[in-house]
């Protein structure tokens, strides 16, 4: 059967949504000296959109050399709580922004629940850049906020965590069986509402979650149900996947990552998923008849035992009359014929990600001029 035709029949909406949950950038940017001396004054005088500021000091004592290492970590939330978060480390060498966390949904939308169709990664990072720049010691360093190829290797930033999510409407988690992935150890937390697959070093996390009320960003803010598949890629695993995906152009692509690249990353990981998807047949919805027949039919799909064996074993327990047995066998066979299954990997086609959509801007950050952002988010 044609893969896409099969998918369409199983998923009436057939419009997967995607969003970037979080982007982490590993950086090394020197912070403004006045901020270092007196953060609250600096924030007030420069009218920065800081909504939360906290700090934690860590002192570790090395008795062998009788020294104390002091490290102060400050956490700053810009624009909204969680929208842009900066981790600033202060040590003997100075005060540096070491990590930048961006949540595009919060930065561009109003709520975490929004499934905002992010079409441009550049759009998001430019907003972030605008808010982070005033904190830097040297305004020229603002070029290094976002990962791009720079001659100065010390300043160069890079993506450290990519947390991306896809929602497949109409596909429910209880309909996915025997989920596994070659890069992960085992299923964690198989509760029926959530399944998590984690790699040994926790650098790859695949999280399946039932979504009952995903809010669409349309006028009516309509709600849809489906399964959210969140992929979190970190550190070496992120590098390895980009290496595998883009081959020789790895370094270039890694520095200049686009939304299309992130979609391809998600696709390449989900393509390796093992397991089967058995949708509930339309005839079964709102029909409570022939329970036993349906259960046996499902069991034959999700266990290693054949349908015939299930029938034999179950009838040995039930011991029905000859006519009931005949009727029951017929019902089971009909129920079984109504079921169909496909590999889970087939749910994730390049088309379903909308990678070839016209409205997806395949931008390259290195070519973008660093113009001040004057769009609709200026009033944030």
């Amino acid at each position, binding site marked *: 059967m044609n893969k896409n035709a099969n998918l369409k029949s199983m998923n009436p909406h057939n419009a997967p949504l995607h969003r970037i949950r979080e982007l982490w950038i590993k950086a090394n940017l020197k912070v403004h000296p006045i901020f270092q001396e007196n953060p609250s004054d600096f924030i007030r005088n420069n009218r920065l959109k800081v909504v939360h500021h*906290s*700090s*934690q*000091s*860590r*002192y*570790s*004592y090395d*008795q062998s050399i009788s020294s*104390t290492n*002091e490290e102060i970590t400050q956490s700053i939330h810009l624009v909204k709580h969680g929208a842009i978060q900066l981790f600033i480390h202060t040590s003997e060498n100075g005060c540096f922004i070491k990590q930048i966390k961006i949540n595009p949904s919060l930065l561009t939308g109003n709520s975490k629940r929004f499934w905002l169709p992010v079409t441009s990664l550049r759009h998001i990072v430019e907003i972030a850049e605008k808010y982070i720049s005033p904190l830097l010691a040297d305004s020229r360093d603002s070029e290094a906020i976002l990962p791009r190829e720079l001659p100065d290797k010390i300043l160069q930033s890079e993506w450290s965590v990519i947390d991306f999510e896809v929602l497949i409407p109409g596909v*429910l988690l*209880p*309909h996915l*069986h025997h989920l596994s992935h070659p890069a992960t150890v*085992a*299923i*964690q*937390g*198989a*509760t*029926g509402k959530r399944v998590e697959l984690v790699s*040994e070093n926790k650098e790859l996390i695949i999280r399946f979650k039932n979504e009952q009320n995903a809010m669409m960003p349309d006028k009516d803010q309509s709600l849809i149900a489906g399964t959210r598949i969140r992929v979190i890629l970190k550190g070496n695993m992120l590098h390895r996947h980009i290496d595998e995906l883009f081959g020789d152009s790895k370094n270039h692509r890694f520095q200049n990552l686009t939304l299309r690249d992130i979609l391809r990353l998600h696709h390449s990981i989900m393509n390796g998923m093992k397991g089967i998807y*058995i949708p*509930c047949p339309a005839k*079964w*919805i*709102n*029909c*409570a008849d022939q*329970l*036993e027949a*349906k*259960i046996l039919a*499902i*069991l034959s799909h*999700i*266990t290693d*035992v054949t349908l015939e064996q299930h029938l034999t*074993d*179950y009838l040995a*327990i*039930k011991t029905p009359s000859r006519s009931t047995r005949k009727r029951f066998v017929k019902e089971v066979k009909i129920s079984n014929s109504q079921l169909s299954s496909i590999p889970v990997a087939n749910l994730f086609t390049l088309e379903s990600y909308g990678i070839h959509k016209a409205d997806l801007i395949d931008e390259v950050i290195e070519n973008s001029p660093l113009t001040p952002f004057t769009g609709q988010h200026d009033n944030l």
Partner: protein
Amino acid sequence: MNKSKSKHKHPFTNPQALNKKHFPESEAITLPCQPEPPSSPEQHSDPVSPHITAKTPRLWTTQTANDQISSRHMPLDKTVIRTVIEVNQDFAKSPQAFGEQNEIWQVHVNTKENIVTMYFRNCRGLKTSIRLGNGKLCQTEIRFTPSSCIYGHNGRVLTVSEFHDAVGVAINRLLPLLRDPHEWYHLLPGSSSESRAYWDAIEIIQHIEDHDGNILASFKNASWRNAITRVWPTGVKIGGRNSERQFCIYEKAQEMYAKRNLTESECNELRNILRLEVRLKGKALIEALDDQSSIGIIDGNRRIVRFSPELLIRAHRACFNLPRGVFFENPLGTQSLKCGMAEHMGLYLAQICIQSNGASNFVGLLNSLCHYAKVTANMKSRIKRSALDCLTRHHNIASAEFFAKLACQKQPQMLIPSIEDKVRRSEDDIFRNDAIELNYRSTQETKFIPHATIPSYMIQ
């Protein structure tokens, strides 16, 4: 510390060395202490004055009354103690400078919340968070894992005397934080009537050998009320993350290997050890350890202030009797009277789960099937009851045998020399006081077993 120095300081050869750091021998120390309500005839005949002196050091090779309890296990893993203490002024002024002068490895200061978190040198399994306020008294949370404190890992099941040593090590580390070290009893629940400390969360454990994986497979089919059951290839968790009572059944060696505490060969050697753990907090903790002697009133609330090994074992057994579908139960008491479609289906699903040997777990399978077949709540409950009846009949081991006294006493332990060899304690490291042994001791008289060997963590 070198061996000759330690020999000199060992109380066996130099008993005056005890607690020299905090209690110089020239000082006559009297500490307020309330004895636990007498629960055994032995205690009645041994009145303890409300003020006791710092205890004489333990003589490992000498038979003492306290050694009678040393053969019993104190089956604890992670615990949380909450208390209110009056902190040292130097600490309140500058936690970082204080950390430098004392046995503290790391200090984290959260300026917004004004919370100081400390990790201690040479003392795994002890973490303290103190909320510094304007007043003298500070709320304190002590996360204490006795086994990690003295063996460097939590794979051991401690005996009562080892537990006392672990408590002694922890108190010794925490004493400098107090304004007045004589008020040490605020660090250990139940050690005095004035103590403001109580046990807030406790993990009670038991190890069993599971050579063929059958016991773990049985637990994968367990069901307890509507609690969430999460299943891994090497473990099961029954109860949600915020649940006050959570059951964790897992292969301990695999967990330690994942955390890089064990090498692959050590993991393979110890992989048969299955840990049955119940995590209790809040009301469930009070309910499980409710006993005349264990409950105290702290700030008007009923709290757990002390326990005996017997109480912990009783609570562990009581909790593990709750999940159904694991142990053999009397068929007459559990068999359903009805015999309809739901009962047949329940039987059949149980049969599938048993045959799969852990590959299919009953709760997951039932939820999945009900989702497709639109099974009503009543029908689902009948299927579940029938399946659990079948599962309980199938098992040939009853919980009474499973948690028998002998099984508890002979439980396997994880001895990991590569970690344990790194931990060495001298008597100076361990704070000793009769109140510790008095409040955390066995309530039953046991056959005398002399403590003939010095524990591996003590400097010999």
